[in-house]
C-alpha cells in the first residue's frame, strides 16, 4: 500500500484553459477522491441586473460565456418575454434557433479540436479549427460579430437573414458535414483514442440521474433528456426530434454523443431554413415587468440545460436574475467519474465533461 497524497490540478493546467482547481487524493496512482473548487473568475454578473435596465442586460448576459454567448442572450430574452407576456414574431423564433444551433456546431467543433489536441493529434486540431472558422464566418456575415453577436433583443432579433444567405448557410454546412464526418471517423475509430477512453470515467445511469446531470454528458449515460424535446419556440415546428443517447456511460460515449450532435444541428438548421415564415423580426416592447412578476425558462446550451429565473419589480430594473448553468450541474458528475480513475486519465475525463467555468461562476 502506498501513502495517500494530494495532487493539485489547475487552476492553470495545459489541458483546460479555464480555471478550475481539483484536489486529487491519490494513492498508488489511483484517484481516491476529487474535490473541485471554483471561484477564480467570479464577476458578479447577476448582480449587474440591478444597475442595467432589462434591455441593456442582454449585452451583459451574452458575455457570461464566450461559447454559449448566443444561447445566453436568447435564454435571457425569452425569460423577459415570458415575464412581460410578449409573443414574438414566428420568424424571429426561427432565426434565433438557427443561430443557436449554429453556435452549438461551433462549440462542439471547438471541443473536438481541443480533445484532439489533448491527445497530441495536432493535424486534427487544425482541421477542426478550419471548419469552425467557416461557421464563424457565417456568424460574422449575418450578425456582425464572431463571438459576441448582440443580435437578440427583447421582442425579437435585430437583424434578418435573407433567403440567399440561408442558402449559403446550407451550402457551407453541407461542406462542413462531409469533412466533419471524416474527422470524426479518423478520431473516433483511432485505436489509441478508443483504448484511452473506452471504459474510463464511467458515470452510471443512476448516478447521472441522481446528480441531475444535463446535456450531452447525461445523454451519454442514457438519460433521455434534452430541452429541445420540450419544443420551446421554433423547436416545436421540427418534424421530429430525438435526443442522441448512448448507454456506455464512459468517456468514449460522451465523445460519440457530442460528435453526433453536429450533424443533428445541421439537419435542424436545414429544416428550419426551408420552413421559415416571412414577416416581422421584432415587435416593439414598451413598459416594464410588473411588480412581483416571476418567470423561468430553460434553454439547451451546447453543454446542456441552462435555467433562467427573473423577477420584476415594476421598474425597468429587474429585482433578480438567476442563471443555473449546465456545468454547475455536471461538476458533481465529474467528481464521480474521477473517483477510482488513474491519475493519467484525469485530463481525459475533465475534457470529456468539458466544464465551462466562466458560465458557472458568472
Amino acid at each position, binding site marked *: 500500500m502506498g501513502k495517500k497524497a494530494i495532487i493539485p490540478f489547475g487552476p492553470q493546467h495545459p489541458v483546460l484553459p479555464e480555471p478550475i482547481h481539483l484536489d486529487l487524493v491519490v494513492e498508488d496512482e489511483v484517484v481516491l477522491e476529487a474535490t473541485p473548487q471554483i471561484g477564480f473568475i467570479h464577476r458578479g454578473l447577476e448582480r449587474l441586473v*440591478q*444597475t*442595467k435596465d432589462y*434591455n*441593456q*442586460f442582454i*449585452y*451583459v448576459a451574452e*458575455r457570461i460565456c464566450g461559447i454559449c454567448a448566443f444561447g445566453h442572450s436568447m435564454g435571457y430574452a425569452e425569460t423577459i418575454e415570458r415575464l412581460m407576456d410578449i409573443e414574438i414574431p414566428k420568424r424571429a423564433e426561427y432565426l434565433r434557433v438557427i443561430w443557436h444551433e449554429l453556435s452549438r456546431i461551433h462549440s462542439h467543433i471547438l471541443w473536438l479540436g481541443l480533445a484532439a489536441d489533448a491527445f497530441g*493529434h495536432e*493535424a*486534427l486540431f487544425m*482541421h477542426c479549427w*478550419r471548419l469552425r*472558422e467557416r461557421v464563424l464566418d457565417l456568424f*460574422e*456575415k*449575418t*450578425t*456582425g*460579430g464572431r463571438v*459576441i453577436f*448582440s443580435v437578440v*433583443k427583447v421582442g425579437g432579433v*435585430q*437583424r434578418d437573414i435573407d433567403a440567399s444567405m440561408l442558402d449559403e448557410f446550407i451550402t457551407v454546412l453541407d461542406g462542413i458535414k462531409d*469533412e466533419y464526418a*471524416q*474527422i470524426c*471517423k*479518423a*478520431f473516433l*475509430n*483511432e*485505436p*489509441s483514442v478508443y483504448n484511452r477512453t473506452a471504459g474510463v470515467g464511467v458515470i452510471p445511469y443512476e448516478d447521472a440521474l441522481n446528480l441531475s446531470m444535463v446535456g450531452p454528458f447525461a445523454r451519454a449515460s442514457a438519460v433521455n433528456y434534452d430541452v429541445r424535446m420540450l419544443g420551446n419556440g421554433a423547436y416545436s415546428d421540427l418534424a421530429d426530434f430525438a435526443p442522441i443517447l448512448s448507454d456506455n456511460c464512459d468517456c468514449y460515449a460522451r465523445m460519440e454523443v457530442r460528435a453526433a450532435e453536429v450533424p443533428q444541428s445541421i439537419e435542424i438548421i436545414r429544416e428550419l431554413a426551408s420552413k421559415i415564415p416571412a414577416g416581422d423580426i421584432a415587435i416593439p416592447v414598451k413598459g416594464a415587468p410588473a411588480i412581483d412578476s416571476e418567470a423561468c425558462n430553460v434553454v439547451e446550451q451546447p453543454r446542456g440545460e441552462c435555467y433562467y429565473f427573473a423577477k420584476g419589480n415594476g*421598474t425597468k*430594473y429587474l429585482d433578480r436574475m438567476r442563471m443555473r448553468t449546465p456545468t454547475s450541474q455536471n461538476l458533481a458528475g465529474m467528481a464521480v467519474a474521477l473517483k477510482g480513475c488513474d491519475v493519467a486519465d484525469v485530463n481525459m475525463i475533465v475534457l470529456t465533461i468539458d466544464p465551462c467555468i466562466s458560465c458557472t461562476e458568472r
Partner: protein
Amino acid sequence: MGVFKLGKMTFGSLFKKPETVLYPIEQKPKPVGLKGHIAIEAESCILCGMCDRSCATNCITVDKQARTWAIDRFQCIQCGYCVTCCPKKCLHMDPDYAPASTQHTVDVVEVPAQDKPAKAEKADDNKPAATAAAAAEKPSETEQVPTNAKDRDEALLAAIALMEPEKAQRVRDALEARS
C-alpha cells in the same frame, strides 16, 4: 494510424488554396454589417442625450453646453444599442475596426449648431425631467434646473424616478442632507 485515416483530407489540402491569408498584406473582405466601431453624422445630431443614457457601459458623453458628442472607444462593447435608441438615426456601426492606440483617449466630435435653434430649445422646454436628470448627473449644469421651486421639485422627482435605484437613493439622501 490517424495519419492514414486523415490522408484523403490532408492530401486534398495539398492542391487547394490555403485557408489562411497573409495578414496584414492580404486581408479578408469585411462583411457589410460587421460591427467595427460607432460613427456619428454630427450634422443631424440634436444632442438629445438618448445615446448617453442608453449605453450600457456609459461610454458616450453628450455635452449640450459645449455642443460635443464624445465616445470612449476603449469602453465601447460594440453592442449597437445606442444605434437603435437614437431618435435622429445619426449613429451607425461602421465595418472598420477602430485603429489600435497606445494611449487611452476619448474621441470628441463637435456638433455643429442646428439651422433651427428655436425648435431645439422648445424641445428642451418640453422635457424638464430629462434636463433635470442631466443636471443631477452633472452639477456644472445646475443653471438648467427650473427656477420656480415647485417646478424644480417636480422635475427632480421625475428625474429620480428615471434613475437607477442605487443612484436614486443617493440623490434622495443628498437632498435630505441638504434640507
